[in-house]
């Protein structure tokens, strides 16, 4: 197995209340649909406005990666929203070439570059992030969660 790069450890035993999944074309113009669907789910769960903004940015960054580095032009990628008792977990799954998370460097914030900020932003805004590489270089699954009622 090529990669299974846990950034933060997450408990395995969680009660999933509801699952919503959204499958989107590999095209930038639909990332805003992911943001919209997410904000509906998150506001229904009772997240506050600031948390909803964080969630929107993090999900959009993962979608952008799925599109940029992920799959071919005519394939879709998926987003699963898992509504848990006290957190929202979001999985973004693409069928692209995959990557080794350990080899990605943290951005040097004193020397800004045009790229390389996406994963860093996701890790900063979400409470837990895990990245999985499917076997045989086939696709990425990024799992991120945000807890309800903190901040």
């Amino acid at each position, binding site marked *: 197995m090529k990669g299974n790069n846990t950034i933060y450890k997450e408990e395995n035993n969680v009660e999933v209340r509801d699952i919503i999944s959204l499958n989107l074309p590999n095209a*930038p*113009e639909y*990332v*805003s649909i992911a*943001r919209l669907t997410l904000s509906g789910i998150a506001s229904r769960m009772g997240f506050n406005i*600031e948390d909803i*903004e*964080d969630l*929107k*940015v993090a999900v*959009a*960054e993962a979608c*952008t990666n799925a*599109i940029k580095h992920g799959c071919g032009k005519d394939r879709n990628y998926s987003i699963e929203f898992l509504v848990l008792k006290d957190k929202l977990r979001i999985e973004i799954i693409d069928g692209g070439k995959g990557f080794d998370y350990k080899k990605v460097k943290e*951005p040097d*914030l*004193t020397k*800004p*570059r*045009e*790229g390389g*900020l*996406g994963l*860093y*932003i996701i890790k*900063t*805004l979400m409470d837990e992030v895990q990245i999985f590489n499917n076997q045989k270089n086939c696709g990425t699954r990024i799992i991120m969660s945000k807890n309800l009622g903190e901040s």
Partner: protein
Amino acid sequence: MILNIKDQFDEEKGRWLIELEGEADVYTVNNFKERMHQLLDEKMADVEIDGTSLQYIDSIGLGALIGLRGRMADQEKVLIIKNIQPNVRKLLNITGLDKIFIIEQED
């Protein structure tokens, strides 16, 4: 879901005044980059971006600002960003870009 760009050259201050309205994201960013480079081709000068109506920015939008600043810094011009919303501000903070751009907040 769209980004409207209004531009005007302020002769007095000698800078481009840019108002952004909407969302600067992976979808709208190309149009924004093109427009800004056209303006700088026309006249290389400081740029002041008014973010009062900028609802959203993502890493690609931030990247475009970084690229813009790079081109301007070579010519000793500055990029000023004013009146940004809290969510945009937060992204500038966590990426350290608040220390790289000139941020002006009116209140």
